[in-house]
C-alpha cells in the first residue's frame, strides 16, 4: 500500500491491489484511513468488501475514487468520490466527525 506522506492515509490503486496480503498486513500495522483508486473496473470485490468491513469495524475511513457511471458495479453502501482531492476532503471530514464523537 502506498502511504500518503504524513497523513495516515493509505492509497490502494492498480499497482498494489493484487497484493492483498500486503495490504491487509499494512492496515493492521499502521491503522490507516484508506483511499481506493482504480483506473479500471476490477474484479476484487470480495477483497474490497473485506477491507470495507475491516475499516468500519475499526471506525476508520474508506473511500473509493470512481466515475459516476462505474459506481453501479459496486455496493451502494460504499462511499464514492470523483477525484483524489475530494477523497482527501472526505477523510478529513470523517476525522472531524470522529473527533466530535460521531
Amino acid at each position, binding site marked *: 500500500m502506498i502511504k500518503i506522506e504524513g497523513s495516515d492515509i493509505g492509497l490502494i490503486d492498480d499497482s498494489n491491489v493484487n497484493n492483498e496480503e500486503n495490504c491487509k498486513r499494512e492496515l493492521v500495522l499502521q491503522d490507516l484511513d484508506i483511499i481506493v483508486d482504480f483506473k479500471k473496473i476490477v474484479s476484487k470485490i470480495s477483497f474490497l468488501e473485506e477491507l470495507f468491513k475491516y475499516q468500519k469495524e475499526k471506525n476508520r475511513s474508506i473511500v473509493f475514487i470512481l466515475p459516476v457511471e462505474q459506481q453501479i458495479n459496486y455496493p451502494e453502501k460504499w462511499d464514492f468520490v470523483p477525484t483524489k482531492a475530494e477523497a482527501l*476532503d*472526505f477523510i*478529513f*471530514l470523517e476525522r*472531524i*466527525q470522529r*473527533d*466530535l464523537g*460521531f
Partner: protein
Amino acid sequence: MKKLSVSNLLGIKYLQLDDLHLIFETATHFKEVINRPIKKVPSLRDITIANLFFENSTRTKLSFELAEKRLSADVINFSANQSSVSKGESLVDTVNNILAMKVDMIVIRHPSPGASHFLSKKVDSCIINAGDGTHEHPSQALLDTYSLKEKLGNLQGKRIAIIGDILHSRVALSNIYALKILGAEVMLCAPKSLLPKNVDSLGVMSSLDLMEVLNWCDAVNILRVQNERMELNYFPSSREYSQNFGLNGALLKKLKKDIVILHPGPINRGVEITSDVADSDQAIILDQVENGVAIRMAIIYLLGSQLNTTKP
C-alpha cells in the same frame, strides 16, 4: 469594543461565559432596534454574507436573512438538495466558488456533523454554523437561553428540562452546552431509545418519567420527533409517544407551579405538544422566534466586526 473569543461560530462548545453574555447584551440592543419604526442599522454595510443551505430550512434561513438585512449586509442565498451534496464532496468547491465573489461571511447548514468545522479549516472566511447534522445548532441554543433569561432572569441554578428526541437533535446538544455554561441544571426526558448513550458524559441528568421531570423543572424545552433522521423505529407509535412524553394541558394543571415552555419548531401539534399548551401564556414560542432575529443580528454583528475589511 468587546470581542468574542472565537472568530467563527462553530458550536456552543467553543464559547465561554463572557461570549454568551456579550451576545445577549448585543442582542438586547438589537431587539430594541427591530422594534423601532425603522428597523435597519448600517452596521455591516460593507459586508457580504452567503447563506449556504444544503438542507431544508425555512425559519432558520429566514431568520438569518432578516438579521443580515437588518444590519445592512449584502446577502446571497444558495440552496442545495441533501441528495445532491454529501459529506465533503464538492462542498469546498462550492464554497470556494462563492468566496471568489468576495464574500466575507458564510452561514452554513449541512446534513453532515462537523461540516462547518471542516469548512473553517478549508476556506479563509468567517463561518457560522446554522446546523450541522445531529451535532450542533448554536444560534438556536443562544436564542433559547436568551429567551429563558428574559423569563427567568439569571439561569444559575435554574432547572431546565429538555424533552423529546434528544438522540437526533442538534438543538439539544447546543442547549445542553449553553445551559451548563450559564450554570443551569439540566435534565433530559425521552424514551430510552431516543436518549444518547453518552448522557452521563454531558453532565446532565435523565429520566423516563415525564411527570417527575415536570415537577422538577422551572422550564421545559420540547423537541420535535425527527422522523426524517430515523432509520429505525425508535418507539411503537406516535400515539404511544404522545401518551408517555407529550405535553398537554391536563399534565400542566396537575403541577403546583407555572413552568416556562419552549419549542424550537416546527411543532407537531398533538404529538410532542398539544395546541392548548403551545398557544398558552406559559409558552414563549413566538418570543423565541422574535429573539432569533436579535440573537442572529448579534452573532453576525460581533463576528463581522472582527473581520479584516480594509478597503482600497
